[in-house]
């Protein structure tokens, strides 16, 4: 496995959860850049280089988006829709990472072309393993455009 620097966009309103993701993510892959935004509006601003995210060098287009569904302002599903509606952004794998295991969310997410749907496990070990596997699968094994 080659070591490569990846850009990850983490869209997560809960700061504690974001901390958990960032920590487990970066435990073994220190080279990755994780860009964290707290709501849907900020996520779209980041991806479209709008407002305070207009500097494309500081805020590069990510290799993967980790997207929570329940977000302030613009909902996670709306963010997903806008990503997948954009010709170049739709190439980015969007992994839904949410506390919701509701079927309606699952179906809606896949309808809007989510690439993967993951439910945050309550259990710490499982959470750590999911994060590790997620990294291995999506960033190491998975081929990016």
């Amino acid at each position, binding site marked *: 496995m080659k070591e490569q620097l990846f850009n990850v966009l983490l869209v997560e309103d809960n700061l504690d959860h974001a901390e958990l993701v960032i920590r487990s993510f970066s435990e073994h892959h220190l080279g990755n850049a994780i860009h964290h935004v707290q709501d849907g509006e900020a996520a779209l601003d980041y991806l479209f280089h709008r407002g305070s995210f207009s500097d494309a060098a500081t805020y590069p287009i990510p290799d993967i988006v980790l997207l929570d569904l329940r977000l302030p*302002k613009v909902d996670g599903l709306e963010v997903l829709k806008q990503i997948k509606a954009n010709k170049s952004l739709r190439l980015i794998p969007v992994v839904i990472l949410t506390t919701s295991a509701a079927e309606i969310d699952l179906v809606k997410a896949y309808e809007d072309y989510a690439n993967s749907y993951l439910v945050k496990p309550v259990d710490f070990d499982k*959470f750590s393993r999911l994060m590790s596997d997620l990294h291995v699968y999506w960033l190491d094994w998975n081929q990016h455009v």
Partner: protein
Amino acid sequence: MTKGVGLEAQRPFSIIVSLRLYLFLIIAVVSVIASALVLVNEAAKTKGDFETKAETSVRYLGSILELPLWDLDPATVAIIGDALFRDEDIASLRITAVRGRIFYEKSRPEKADIAKAVTIKHEGEEIGQAEVALTYRNANSRVLDFLAKMLAAMIVIVLLTIFLASRLIRVFLRDPLDYLTRVVSSYAEGRYPAGTGEFPIVEFKAFDEVLEGMASRILGQLSDMKGLNAELEESASEKDELIHDLHNSEAHYRELYDGVPIGLFRTTPDGRFVDANPPMVALLGFEDRANLDTVCLQDMYADKSDYELWKSTMDSESSLQNMEFRLRQRDGSLCWVRNRTHVVKDSEAQAIGYEGCLEDITVLKSAEAEQKKLIAELESKNAELARFTYSVSHDLKSPLITIKGFLGYLEKEAKEGNFDDFGEDLARITNAVDRMQSLLLELLELSRIGRIENEKVLISFEKIATEAASLVEGRLQERNVKVEIAHNLPSVFGDASRLREVVVNLVDNAAKFMGDQGNPRIEIDTRTDDGETVFFVRDNGIGIDPRYHKRIFGLFERLNPNTEGTGMGLTIVERIINVHGGRIWVESEGIGKGSSFCFTLPDVPVANDEYGVV
């Protein structure tokens, strides 16, 4: 004018009387003519005779008097004169001699009709003259005698003739006519002496044949008529039966027509009522069938477009079923009806009106509406519950993940002997637990609204606002926020502590989102929108993007994840207002423009001693 020959009004005419009259006249005329002829003939003969007689007489005198006159012997002349004068036909006799000496002169008083004179000569010498005048008198009286005798004979003949004629008429005319009359009468009376055959008078043979033919035809027709009559009687009895049945079914029909609980009607093409049963009359809000004469069904449609649809359907389809629309009753109230109509046509397929029924489905409709409302309510409750469950499961799980996650790190760090982040991680866990606790408390609170209610009272909103402001005094002072509560705010009817909670939440929110406003201010006041009182809590804080005006009332919704609170405040506020029957919304032109939280509350019920102003 179609006046047939022989049918003209004629005077009654009797053959016998006429016959008698004409016979009498003929005989009389013949008798008169005959008598006249005889009379004329007799008169002529008498005249001729007298001429001759007069001639003879004077000639006789001429010859016989020659000598006496020559001798101038008056005695002999007198004897001769007297002898002649004895004849009574001689009216006068004069014998004169020469120089006018009268030898003889005698006369009778009778008129002289013929006069003759002769000159008496002796050896050519005139010696005298004789004049004789005759009268018809005697001859006339003879003629008159004859006439009288003849008249008598004629009268006898006439009487005889009349008598004979009468007898003849009786025997040859009257009796046969009477016979004929009797025969015809018997036919006329319906007695048909069939096969009389022996008609005693040859001339009536033709009558007999005609009558017999007629009789046989009449008999034939009579027997036909008997058959027809029998048939007629039969059909008449059938007809009676039918009429009876018809009356029965008419009565049944009427009973049904009037008895069904559905309005039945028949109208003219322009909607005037021809017939209507009592439910129909009642449906339109009238008491009596006669009232309907003044109204037109099409004028009673509450919605003209319903009538137009009805009319166009009837025009194209000739009938319609189960069309539902509203009618305006006489008193103006509306009722829902279900209609079924068809066009009534006459025998020539001409539309002569409409016939149909109207069913009052107002109750059904309101039940339907009620049902729809209940279903909608239930659906919205269900959706709310689903959202609630979803939000709760999601948001209650979040702190658990945090707690478990950081506990895991704590354990790991403890094992590794690395305590750099220990305090921070522990704080995260404590916060998550606190958050969990407040979530649970507020969820419990939310579930209580509408379920556990305090008594509703009439209370001044100014009082509620003042109390609420004092409850958040701490935060207001901390941020130097000024609260202005309008005076003379209206009274509201509701749960005082819940309404206070609403104002507390709104004022607290306003204070929380003041941003870097240098002169933070909150106004509590009312305004009137379309006659409705709108309460509002207005601030000059950071404002809210119009995109999020709806979302902010959702459960656990927070526009900024970093602000304190569970995201349940506005959910609770909305719930309280809804439970009171009001609406709540936010008005804000956007970021930096401040925001107004507006809500309505139903009108205060009519003041009652029961509800004292608190």
